[in-house]
């Protein structure tokens, strides 16, 4: 075990981190987790989940025609969401992850994953409409995000971080979600209309 610890690769590190964080969230700091305040630990877990989502999602081939990287964009005011930068340069199925923070006016066409680190429903609604018919995996953390047309939404259940999936939205976005992912997810129906 010591050897494997020493040789630990970045991906594993993320996984470990995510797990430890989740464990802490679940066992040690329920009051802290319960609060609406977003802590750094929580974001680290979410970052790990996002990394793993990428593993269980299959993009259409056209999505990587322009560049062979998985582009992770995020829009957030929360400074803890900077933890996503940890995923930079990680490789999934031979593709490198590049993390970009979304600024107003940025071109979002290159994004493959978009994380909404905000509860601003207006912004979310606008962006979801913008992303329509594009193969972008949208991830949110606001109640009702999935019902709005987002594909994956984090939520807390009994101190555990869980997620819900809008299968219809995913289908519309041309993304195939692995059954592995779906097995652990709450399935949500409905679109923005």
């Amino acid at each position, binding site marked *: 075990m010591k050897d494997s610890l020493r040789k630990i690769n970045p*991906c594993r590190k993320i*996984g*470990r981190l995510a*797990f430890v964080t989740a464990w802490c969230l679940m066992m040690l700091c329920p009051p802290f987790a319960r609060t609406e305040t977003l802590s750094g630990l929580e974001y680290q877990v979410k970052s790990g989940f996002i990394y793993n989502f990428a*593993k269980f999602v299959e993009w259409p081939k056209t999505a990587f025609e322009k560049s062979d990287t998985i582009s992770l964009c995020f829009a957030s005011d929360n400074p803890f969401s900077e933890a996503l930068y940890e995923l930079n340069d990680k490789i999934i199925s031979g593709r490198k992850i590049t993390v970009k923070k979304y600024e107003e006016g940025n071109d979002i066409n290159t994004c493959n994953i978009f994380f909404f680190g905000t509860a601003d429903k207006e912004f979310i609604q606008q962006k979801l409409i913008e992303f329509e018919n594009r193969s972008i995996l949208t991830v949110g953390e606001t109640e009702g995000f999935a019902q709005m047309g987002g594909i994956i939404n984090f939520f807390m259940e009994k101190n555990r971080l869980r997620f819900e999936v809008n299968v219809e939205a995913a289908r519309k976005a041309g993304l195939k979600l692995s059954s*592995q*992912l*779906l*097995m*652990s997810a709450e399935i949500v129906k409905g679109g923005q209309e």
Partner: protein
Amino acid sequence: MGAFRDLSIKWKLKTIIMLTSGVTILFASVAFIFKDVTAFRKAIRDDLSSLAQVIGLNSKGALVFLDQRTAERNLAALRAKPDIFFACIYDMNGNVFAAYYRQETDEKPPPPALRKEGHYYEGNYLFMFQQIPLENEIIGTVCIQYDLSRMNAELIQSIGIFSGIVVIAFVIAWILSSSLQRVISEPILNLTQTAKAVSKEKDFSVRAEKHSQDEIGILIDGFNEMLARIQSRDNLLKKYREHLEEQVSLRTAELHQANRELLAAKETAESANRAKSEFLASMSHEIRTPLNAVLGFSDLLNSLITDKRQKNYLESIRSSGKSLLTLINSILDLSKIEARKIELHFEPVDPHAIFNEIKRIFSLKASEKNLDFIIDIAQDIPKRLILDELRLRQILINLIDNAIKFTEIGYIKISAEKEDIENDTDHLNLMIVLEDTGIGIPAGSREEIFEAFKQGYGQSTKRYGGTGLGLTITKRLVEIMGGFISVQSEEGKGTRFDIIIPRVSIAPDEVQSEKDDAFDSEDIIFEKALVMIVDDIESNRELIKEYFRQTDVTFIEAEDGEKAIPLVKQYKPDIILMDIRLPGMDGYKTAKLILGDTETAAIPIIALTAFGMKEEREKIMHSGFQGFLSKPIQQSELFREVARFIKYSKKEKIGKAEAIERLPSEVMERLPDAIGALENEVMELWKSTRKNHFFDEIASFGHQMKLLGEKYSLDVLIKFGDDLSNQAGQFDVENMNITLDTFPELIEKLKSLLQEDR
């Protein structure tokens, strides 16, 4: 293995079959069970492995998204497999993420620690660990614990079934082997029974039954054939046995017959041999008597006839008669040699003396034929050699006789020399050479001359006479002595005979032998003296007395030391002659006792020893003896020793002639008459006798001389006559001739005595 060897064939076969089939069945069963178990376990492992893989695959998401519920749901699917006791999923840190227990178990043992991928058997359980990969990392491990107890129960059950099958197979094999072994063992048993019966009852008419054509069948055939042969041989033997006694008696009879014949033949041979001996013995007499008559009457006739022709015939008769006589004597001699009746008498002799004597015998004959007679004897030949004097003389006389016979002009030379033997000072090789300038022997007959009745080629018997046996006898005599004789010759120029007598012993020198020349026993006249002789052999004593016969020395005698000592004390002799080897007390001891007694200590003692060794001589000289004499004792030596202790005077020398004792005065008075008679009538008779060489004539001449000697009291003449008639009577040709030839010397001696007296 030894026990197995002694088993009967029946049991051997059974054992072999049982062992073979048993081992086969056992191995087959074990292999089958082993394969079954292995295959079963592999099936379980494969099953578990795929189950674990499916669970792992389905639980990837659950693991990644920390979804314990989903994972447990996945594990719960194992309920379909009741043998799975426990299953769990470990997260990447090795902690149990989700677990499953078989429902019926109440107690929940702690899950096993995480291990590497693979399967492990532990106690009653099989553990299967299957890692769960995602992308490039292992995100967790599935573990399934399989309960083997049901499978083991099944295994025991199947082993039981197999054991049952093995036992049944054994039983069947036993039954089969019991019945099948008979096929082989029964004929062999039958054969054995037959063989036993045959050897027990000695009935070779029994035959073994044959049931098959296999190897055993062949064996039985062979056995039967052997029996048949034995039977026929038996019958033959029986026949022979019946016949044998008859044959034995027949053969015995034949043998007896042969023995009788052999015995008869032996007797015949023996009687023939006896007859031959008798014939030879009597022939001398039977043939010689008429022959002498023939010769005698021819002599008488010779003086009566004057007719020249008749004289010639008569001469022929005479010479033929003489030849015949010589021939007979030679044949007798040769037959003695051939029959090995000749014994050699070796004794110390002086070869110089022998050669001188030879010269004396033949010089007259040689001078008659105007031949030079040369004797050349090497002076370094020792004076004492161990030889048979008589035979050596015979050899020389034969050869020289021949030489003179066949030589008309020139010389006859006899020479002798010695050859030393390396590293051996006690022996030498004696080489004698006889050369003549006679007619020689042709090359072809050089070897033949030694064969009986062969004379030189072209030899005229009439001219030379002879029997043709002389050389044969000579050769045999040389060979009996261990020597060799060879001949070289050139026809018309001469002949040379070489004789080699090897390894002739040299007798030890006489003590003070250097005195020999100065001392002449014949010159000694001893004064009155008393000499004692101690010797157990009478003849020895007599000999010594004989030597002193003409002296004033008187003797006392003793047979041994015990008798000698009191006599010595009583008579106090002037000198004692003592034999060393005496019965009882030996010479040394006797001498010691005599010398130890003050009364007798001054008496000189001379030892008499047989043919002394150096060591013995030294012993004698250290034992108080005054001197010693070696046997056979010679007069001169005896006198010399005795003269050291007894007073004597010396006679004047009388030339070379043999000493004749001083004669009493009455004898001396008649001596001139005797000499006159001898010189005249007797001389004529001697000449004719010597010329004619008739044995009877010589014998009668000897007799006459004896009578004459008695008439004039001349002992020498009596001795001469006695010797001559004895030698002639014994046909001792050589000695007879020698004696006969000494006659003129005898007259000379008598004459010199007469002159001395005057």
